[in-house]
């Protein structure tokens, strides 16, 4: 696959799977993203991202319980894998490193 590359949306979805811990599936992830970021995402986009993440080995899935509100259909529940966590961590560290590299002055916009 594309290696460890993580798109922006994928990273978001991966984070949400981690956040939701044992209740992560298509709808909850969508909901959570909408709640946390206040941006509208489509269910299918989330699904696609989830499938891609699973292909890359960052999350794993199992079929879980059915509920009445989904017409008795089972959910595919996702959990984050060790590789997923490591990648998230790496991304974060890289961000931190980059943050540290920004010269202090560049934050003083408007004040020359």
């Amino acid at each position, binding site marked *: 696959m594309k290696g460890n590359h993580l798109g922006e949306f994928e990273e978001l979805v991966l984070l949400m799977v981690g956040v939701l811990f044992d209740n992560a599936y298509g709808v909850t992830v969508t909901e959570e993203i909408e709640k946390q970021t206040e941006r509208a995402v489509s*269910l299918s986009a989330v*699904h696609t991202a989830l499938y891609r993440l699973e292909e890359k080995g960052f999350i794993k899935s199992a*079929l879980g319980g059915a509920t009445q509100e989904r017409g008795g*259909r089972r959910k595919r529940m996702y959990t984050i894998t060790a590789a997923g966590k490591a990648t998230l961590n790496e991304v974060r560290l890289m961000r931190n490193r980059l943050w540290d590299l920004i010269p202090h002055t560049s934050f003083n916009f408007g004040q020359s």
Partner: protein
Amino acid sequence: MKEKQHPPRWAEKLLHWYCPVMVLEEIEGDLLENFYRTAETAGFAQARRDYVYEVLRFCNPVTFRKARTYSFSTYPPLNHSAMLRNFFLTAFRNLSKNKTYAAINVLGLALGIACCVAIFVLVRFETSFDDYHSKAEQVYRVNLNQQNADGMQLNGYNFYPLGEAMRAEVSGLEAVTSMHHNWSFQFKVGEQLYEGEHAFFVDSAYFDVFDGQWLAGNPDNAFDQPNTVVVTDQFAEKYLGGVDKAMDTTFLFDNKLTLKVNGILEAPPYNTDMPYSMLISYPSLPAYVPESVDNWEWVGWGATFFVLDQGLNTEQIDQQLDKMIHKYLPEETAKNTSFHLMHLGNNHDKNGNYNSFTYDFPLPLMIILSVMAGMIAFIACINFINLATAQSLTRAREVGIRKTMGSSRFQLILQYMSEAFVITCIAVIAGLALAKIPMRIMNADARRDYLNFDFFQQPSILLFLIGIVLLITLLAGFYPAFVLSGFVPVKALKGKISTGKPKGLNLRRGLVITQFFGAQILILITVIVIQQLNDLKERPLGFDAEAIIFSYIPDTTTNIKAFKQQLAQNSNIQNVTLGWGGASLNAQGITFYGDAGEDFKTQGVVHYGDEQYVQFFERELLAGSNFSEDQNNPLDEVIVNQSLIKALGIEKPEEAIGNVFTMDGKEVLVRGVIQDFYTQALSSKIDPLVVQYDPSKFKAVAVQVAPQHFAETIQLMEGMWERYFPEYLYNYQFLDEALDRQYSFLNNMIGLLEPFAFLAIFIGCMGLYGLISFMAVQRTKEVGIRKVLGASISQIIVMFTKESLLLIVIAFVIAAPAGYYMGQIFLMELPERIDPTVSIFILTLMASLTIALLTIYYRSFRAAIANPADALRYE
């Protein structure tokens, strides 16, 4: 406006249609959950719009890719194997519950399959002739076409020097081989005489064209010297004391050649047109057939084969051969002669009228056989369909319950198909066992063990069986599966599928008509062919063939007169004659004659006979005189028949006496005129006939004996034979049997048609029996009520039988013209066709009605005598 509270149906359907089943559940679940969530916040209208949008968005490659990665192991599997096991279990249970039904189906299908297998093996064998040679694709035989007054004469044999000339003058050939074929011969090992079949004289190029496995000897020079022979291991084993001892032994061939064994070959496989027992070196041929040397005018039993260079086509050879015709043949014959190149693969099954060395098996005959076998199998399939649909009522409840329990229509179809599959499989096994019987018979008929039914060696047979199982399963199971699976569960459970007019009744009627249509056509054709044969056999011969024994006599003329005189002195023997071709001793010398000095006017038959000929065959001498014993110039004076003098333009027999005409380039004088009689077995044409007194051409001696003296006469003749012709094996045949053999074509046809016709009507009747059985069960109550109300047993039997009989009559009305027409096609080859009489048709109809009646009578009788109380009680 009341908003719909569920997602749009069409979008759901769309999703179901495209979405792979592996991910459908989770996607649909999420979609639905999302739908209700959206509905709460934004209303149903928005939710529906979103739903559609999402459904469309889900149709992307990632979804499909994902679905493929979920295998059964990660996705909790549907338990397919358990379901299939259940299907087979139900199938077996259902079969054992309805034993009659199962037996009729299995037996019928088994018979059909046995026919198909036997015919398939036969066709496979007959089409595989000579295809085992490594160069088979490039091998051709040079056939000969000769135009004469009667039309084109086609010949598979050719001029003897042709091979040699082709080798020298025709380019583009890899190898050319000449051979001479000797069908039957006698040979002498030590002091013991034997008879043999299929000796070939071949040159050293033989093995450049054909394949063979050498066990001993040198293939390169084995055929270079005269008087040498290469025998097969079978021959060596049987006559020469084994393969080890056979080399360098000698034996006497047909009292003419002393042959020394200088090689041993593996016996050729059965599927060859050259089933040689020995290959004699070509240089030995001049001593055996002196006429063969450099003779461009006479065609005997010599054939020419060649291997075409790769990439060439036969047209290039044709042109070169045309030049050779004009170079070697006399001018007159050259313009009437052409060569025809026939591919080796066509030699056995598509050789037209070019004769092969053994027997031909024309492709159309194979097609007819295959069609008939297919027809039998089809009739058996119809039984299956009929019985299954008739049974549908009893099984409606089962369908209802299965559907209520969540079975889909597809699964039900699968179930009934697996039932058909189980029956077909059992039938195939039974059919294989049954197929042995016809194959045994066919083996015996051909007097050679050619149908080796070893289906592990023949992958094609295995493939054929698999194919036939699938085809029959589909054919037999498809319709019942659809009908049965189509029941509405509520109605089925309530028993609402009415008994009055069960679904598929018209279809069943149609199928029964089809069955009897097929069966009656076969019967009609069979009867027509039998009548034709009888008609031909009853043609007056003019003499009593039953009382005649004949023997082929040796070529030497020395002792024949004395032998004949000795025979004539015996009191049991009423008459003796020497001759050849006489009244169908099964060989006609064909020759040309015309007016004096004019060749090729017309063609006739020459018989050779002595002074007893006319009397022996009870020919009435219309004018002139018989041959006399001390005839001076016997060759010049001939006896002719009425047709011949008519051809010469003479009206009255008396006027013909003393006339001179040309025969074979020689002038002959008419000495006597006899009455016309049939000269050929399968022809209505009476050929012009010449009887010639030519002792050198006599090939048989015929004696007339009262049947009660047959045994002692044969013994007497054998004793005398040993005295007069110690070098030759004694042989004898009964003339009536020999004459019968001339009709072997028709006899074989009847032999093939009869079993097919019998099977067709048998399977049809089995189906009829099954149908009546089901009718009887279904109408038990009706019968009970009728009886209570005073119906008699015979009335009830009539009730059951009248419909079946009506169906058979309808089938007959369709079959009669079809059978008449096909019978005519069958007999097309015969010049004198009978016109099938009305009695044939009445006979066929009566026969099929009687057979059908007998079949159904028993079952309907049982239904009729049942106690009405039993039938009505359980209500």
